[in-house]
């Protein structure tokens, strides 16, 4: 039965994972994500799942990748310092096409920075933090409800694209409590199984190969080295490498127009806010308080892959205002895709932009 709860964002994330079918959590506790691990430790064993606290975040993501290769839906949760440690193995998950969900409840950085305060400083790290060329999917929740809903979505996308998917939350959304509606059933996308007779890394039109899970009778070689369709290393052929990397990037980037998820308000506006995560809540307040100003709002629920075509939905836009809890990471991406003015509104230190601060920028542009 669908039920209403008054729940913390991090708890809602864990509940979303369980509803989606996650049965493995490997992690190392870190503020402000710890409640996700705590809730999974409480709930997973009772559901026949496995919770394991690893010795660090490098081992955590390694355990998640291993669990996923047995066919389990697997996740970890961390924050900045742990996220940095996971970067090498995130590239391994990309190269081996391992479905997994990585939650980053962002806090102030660099380094240990501000453990208890909110930030969005890892938005480019999640896109580019591992070495080599690749593409990823990243979602950004702006409410406790979306901590649940977008975690479900993250698992479905990970399974569909055989790719790591990031839930890029922030301390504000992770730690606040509010109303959340938990449905009885959630949409579930299982990874496409391997078809005997094919090759384990041979993809069809969707560029995603079927998954030969360990323990199902297949002998499959999994490697981070450049590999052929059999999965065997072949690290010296320029063409093989180029084809593989272009397929890995293409399976995500090619789908960006169809999988992107955003809210669009007042598409005829001249001044348009672009936001994701906690600052979206301030933008929503500004639009609510000033209905006659016709202010536009593009709220990105999926930040990566960046679907630049949605910017064109704002046909009269003269300026995009981008409030972020960083020094302008996604504003830089928007600048790449528009000839309109892009106004960055950086906020560091943990506080959320106030409605007054953001409305003052609208007034200055008039």
């Amino acid at each position, binding site marked *: 039965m669908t039920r209403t709860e*008054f729940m913390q964002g991090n708890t809602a994330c864990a509940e979303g994972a369980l509803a989606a079918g996650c049965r493995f959590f490997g992690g190392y506790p870190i503020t402000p994500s710890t409640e996700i691990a705590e809730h999974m430790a409480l709930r997973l064993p009772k559901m026949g799942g496995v919770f394991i606290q690893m010795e660090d975040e490098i081992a955590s993501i390694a355990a998640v990748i291993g669990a996923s290769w047995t066919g389990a839906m697997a996740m970890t949760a961390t924050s900045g310092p742990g996220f940095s440690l996971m970067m090498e193995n995130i590239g391994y998950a990309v190269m081996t096409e391992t479905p997994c969900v990585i939650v980053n409840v962002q806090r102030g950085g660099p380094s240990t920075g501000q453990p*208890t*305060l909110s930030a969005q400083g890892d938005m480019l790290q999640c896109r580019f933090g591992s070495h080599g060329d690749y593409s990823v999917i990243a979602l950004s929740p702006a409410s406790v409800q979306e901590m649940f809903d977008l975690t479900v979505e993250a698992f479905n996308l990970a399974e569909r694209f055989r790719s790591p998917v990031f839930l890029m939350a922030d301390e*504000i959304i992770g730690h606040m*409590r*509010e109303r959340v509606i938990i449905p009885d059933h959630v949409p579930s996308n299982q990874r496409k199984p391997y078809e005997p007779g094919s090759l384990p890394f041979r993809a069809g039109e969707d560029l995603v190969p079927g998954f030969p899970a360990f323990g199902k009778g297949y002998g499959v070689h999994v490697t981070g080295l450049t590999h052929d369709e059999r999965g065997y290393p072949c690290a010296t052929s320029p063409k093989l490498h180029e084809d593989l990397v272009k397929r890995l990037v293409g399976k995500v980037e090619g789908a960006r127009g169809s999988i992107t998820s955003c809210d669009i308000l007042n598409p005829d506006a001249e001044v348009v806010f672009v936001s994701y995560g*906690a600052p979206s*809540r301030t933008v*929503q307040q500004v639009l609510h308080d000033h209905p006659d100003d016709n202010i536009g709002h593009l709220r990105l629920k999926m930040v990566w892959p960046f679907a630049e075509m949605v910017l064109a939905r704002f046909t009269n836009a003269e300026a995009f205002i981008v409030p972020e809890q960083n020094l302008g990471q996604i504003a830089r991406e928007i600048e790449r895709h528009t000839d309109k003015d892009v106004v960055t509104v950086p906020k560091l230190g943990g506080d959320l932009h*106030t409605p007054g601060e953001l409305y003052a920028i609208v007034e200055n542009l008039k």
Partner: protein
Amino acid sequence: MRHEIRFSGFGGQGIILAAVILGRAAVMYDNKYAVQTQVYGPEARGGASMSAVIIDDEPILYPKVATPDIYVIMSQEGFEKYGIAATGEAQMLVDSTLVHSRPSCHYIEIPATREARESLGRDIVANIIMLGALVAATGIVSRSAIEKAILDSVPKGTEGLNVKAMTRGFELAEEAISR
């Protein structure tokens, strides 16, 4: 109508739990919207602790408390850090056992910690006395909602003690208001 309620005291008094219970009462039993946030730092263990709740009939957009209209203050340090700026229009409930200063806004003195210790035998329920007094003084949620939310949130075996504490809070607030 948006109401912003700020709770402050010292770590261990149940300041955060009080805010969670209030938010839960509003959402689960009065069919309102609520957002609960807290200062999430090491100072919560012993130093001044702060938690806030926003309650509204409409969905809550901006989730942070800017200017509280209701304060519940349970320690002197909490008052100095989180209550001293209260404006004239705000309402404040102070635990008069532990808060020695008096605010410049409207306020009600509730000797919650003394009552918890002397009448109920347990300091730990002072926060529940304050919750009862808050609901009696402001009507921010219904009495049945706060009672149900308290019962959802306290350890098994302590339900009777906590309902007594809530009831005592209602009585103390009514006495203070009629004085």
